[in-house]
């Protein structure tokens, strides 16, 4: 009885894997691997493009509610067909290219951006046994592909022949390079702990339980600090508020894609959101146990649902932050990256080492927390660069 139930749960969990196998198995042997890969690619493109569509609605509705507005509510039920209308609109808009622009590069930039964004999904395990390729150097692949985005951004900014787009591209590249360092360093703690660069084995390591509690890396001092640092760096990498300077709508209008219109503009949006999903998914994979359920008694829920639940949760946090915070300035952003993020990630590496070599127990927790919190406070003090940022008190004249 229970056995068959387990089997049923397992079947539901693996339904996409088995159906893919069944679809491919009829084909001749030499086409099997390639057609299975194509199937997976189509699935990834469709699912994440759909997620992009849903996220745009969620973001606009969420921001609207935070600002005491309704948000889009006209197209379809509760406005959920809004992305459809947006898509039709952007497809039917005239595609304007500046006369002085570098036509070829101008055209290639959004294509490269979306391509790079989609490539990153190859190593992300969205469920148990659900990963496109299980690379040994999966995490490295992820960051390598991520660095292509910088090139695309530069191409867009440079080829538009617009001062604002050039400024935006400069900002974007400086920001991406600066935050790639803490992003990679923050993820190295997990690689150290897992002893592998493969995303699949990193998730597998976290998918076990003590009692009902999972072994996610986020539930350790270094893991939590790493997660926080990773998320901050990811926010900057994906140009989200409060690090959305490359777009800086109120300063440099739209940054590097100011000269794009119609569907190319939509592609930039798509690429940006895909980048955000990808880094969020990486954070989930590294720190939040990937597709693993948060409690052992919840493992009957299919693994892919857990993955997407976590992803949507992170996206909602992104939206929440965007609805609240003003953006930083370029120099502040840079000093934050180099004076706070970099030392903290390096320190986190050290703390992870300490954690590894100390015997388990409460002492280990206290030592690691102290090692992280004290420097964090000190560093945040030094960030003010001698200026006294403080809530002020004012005098009044009668």
């Amino acid at each position: 009885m229970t056995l068959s139930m387990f089997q049923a749960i397992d079947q539901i969990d693996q339904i996409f894997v088995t159906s893919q196998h069944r679809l491919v198995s009829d084909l001749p042997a030499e086409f099997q691997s390639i057609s299975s890969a194509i199937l997976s690619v189509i699935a990834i493109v469709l699912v994440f493009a759909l997620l992009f569509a849903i996220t745009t609605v969620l973001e606009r509705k969420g921001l609207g509610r935070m600002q005491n507005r309704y948000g889009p509510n006209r197209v379809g039920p509760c406005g959920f067909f809004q992305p459809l209308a947006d898509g039709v609109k952007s497809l039917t808009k005239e595609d304007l290219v500046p006369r002085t622009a570098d036509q070829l590069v101008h055209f290639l930039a959004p294509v490269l951006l979306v391509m790079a964004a989609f490539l990153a999904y190859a190593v992300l395990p969205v469920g148990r046994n659900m990963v496109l390729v299980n690379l040994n150097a999966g995490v490295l692949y992820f960051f390598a592909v991520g660095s292509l985005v910088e090139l695309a951004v530069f191409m867009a900014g440079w080829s538009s022949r617009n001062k604002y787009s050039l400024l935006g591209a400069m900002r974007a590249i400086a920001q991406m390079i600066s935050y790639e360092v803490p992003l990679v360093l923050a993820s190295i703690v997990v690689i150290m702990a897992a002893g592998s660069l493969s995303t699949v084995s990193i998730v597998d390591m976290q998918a076990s339980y003590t009692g009902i509690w999972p072994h996610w890396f986020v539930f350790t001092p270094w893991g939590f600090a790493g997660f926080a640092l990773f998320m901050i760096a990811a926010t900057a990498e994906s140009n989200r508020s409060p690090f959305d300077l490359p777009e800086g709508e109120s300063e440099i209008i739209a940054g590097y894609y100011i000269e794009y219109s119609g569907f190319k503009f939509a592609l930039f949006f798509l690429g940006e959101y895909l980048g955000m999903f990808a880094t969020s998914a990486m954070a989930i994979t590294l720190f939040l146990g990937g597709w693993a359920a948060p409690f052992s008694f919840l493992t009957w829920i299919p693994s892919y649902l857990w993955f997407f639940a976590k992803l949507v949760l992170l996206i909602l946090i992104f939206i929440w932050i965007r609805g609240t915070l003003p953006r930083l300035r370029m120099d502040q952003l840079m000093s934050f990256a180099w004076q706070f993020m970099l030392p903290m990630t390096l320190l986190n590496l050290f703390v992870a080492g300490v954690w590894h070599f100390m015997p388990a127990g409460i002492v280990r927790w206290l030592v690691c927390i102290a090692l992280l919190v004290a420097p964090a406070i000190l560093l945040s003090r030094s960030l003010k660069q001698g200026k006294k940022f403080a809530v002020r008190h004012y005098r009044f004249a009668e």
Partner: protein
Amino acid sequence: MSTATEAIRIIPKSPGANDEGQWLEVSMGPQHPSTHGVFRMDVVLDGERIVKLKPVFGYLHRNHEKIAENESYLGSMPYTDRLDYFCSLTNNWAYALAVEKLAGIQVPERAEYIRIITAELTRFQNHACLIGFLTQDMGASGTPLMYAFREREKILDLFESLTGARMMCNYMRFGGCRVDLPAGWIEQARAAVASFPRFLDEFEQLLASNEILMARTQGVGVLSKEFAVNAGVSGPVLRASGVNYDVRKADKYGIYDRFAFKIPLGEHGDTYDRYMVRLLEMRESLKILELALRDIPAGPIVDPKTKIRGFRPKPGEAYAHIEAPKGDLGFYLISDGSSNPYRYRVRPPSLVNLTVLEELCIGHNVADVVVILGSIDIVMGEVDR
């Protein structure tokens, strides 16, 4: 074949400069989203640092003064709405005050109260929206702005039920106001005023102690006391630099001397002070509003001796100014005894305050320019006239 840099005008650095590299001239505006209207700044950048900044305006010039000189005295009243289109009622008041001074008209008690109530409501909504715009310029995706608009809506509803229009009120008349308060207006206004402190608390909660906001505004665009006075800056911008000058206190026009309120003063003269002074001024405005809504007497709302048609003041001249939300707004009129003024001149606070922009911006980043410009609080309708 050429590089991108060809499309960009490069200016060689001034001979005195030592370091290499070029300056980049960027034209911010007039279609830039955060120039608060059709305003252009010719910005010369060294990297992202401002080296020179030249404000260019006049895109919205409408010949306001010349039109007014060919218009009857009353006919200019609706045009004053369009000076600072955020605060039409204070513009009306300043103009009415000037004409009253010119023609020697007395204003009935009730009208004075109505003027103060509408002016302080105007100040409140102007400051609320300004703070919203300022944070919008800082990239806060409009959340504070939407809160400000939510509250402003209440004030605009009040204006609409009183004057018939939400923004272009055209309400003040020489010797009083156009219509009396409709039934239930005072209660509605009291309810609105009572709801504002909660909004201000939320606003402060949302932003005043936000580290990013402090980092973006503190020490940015410092306007020294001396320079502010020398440049003729007025309004909250001046008071943020620590100068205790408020026309409401200095001139006691209308019946402001009957109300107890304080003037918040800044110390550093930076953007954060300009932001906070406005926030505190809103609280003071609420005090005045509460008192005025409590004490407003019954009576006529307009001096019955003033003619609507064929209004011809005696030859002479008059200058009257008030503390508009943006600063010291003055009207100067010369009458030659005919039905239209011989000379009509506006002293726009936005324009005078704008003159310090370059001084405040030099040495800061591009991103700071929009914040500083936002904190000066200009409306192009008033700057260009």
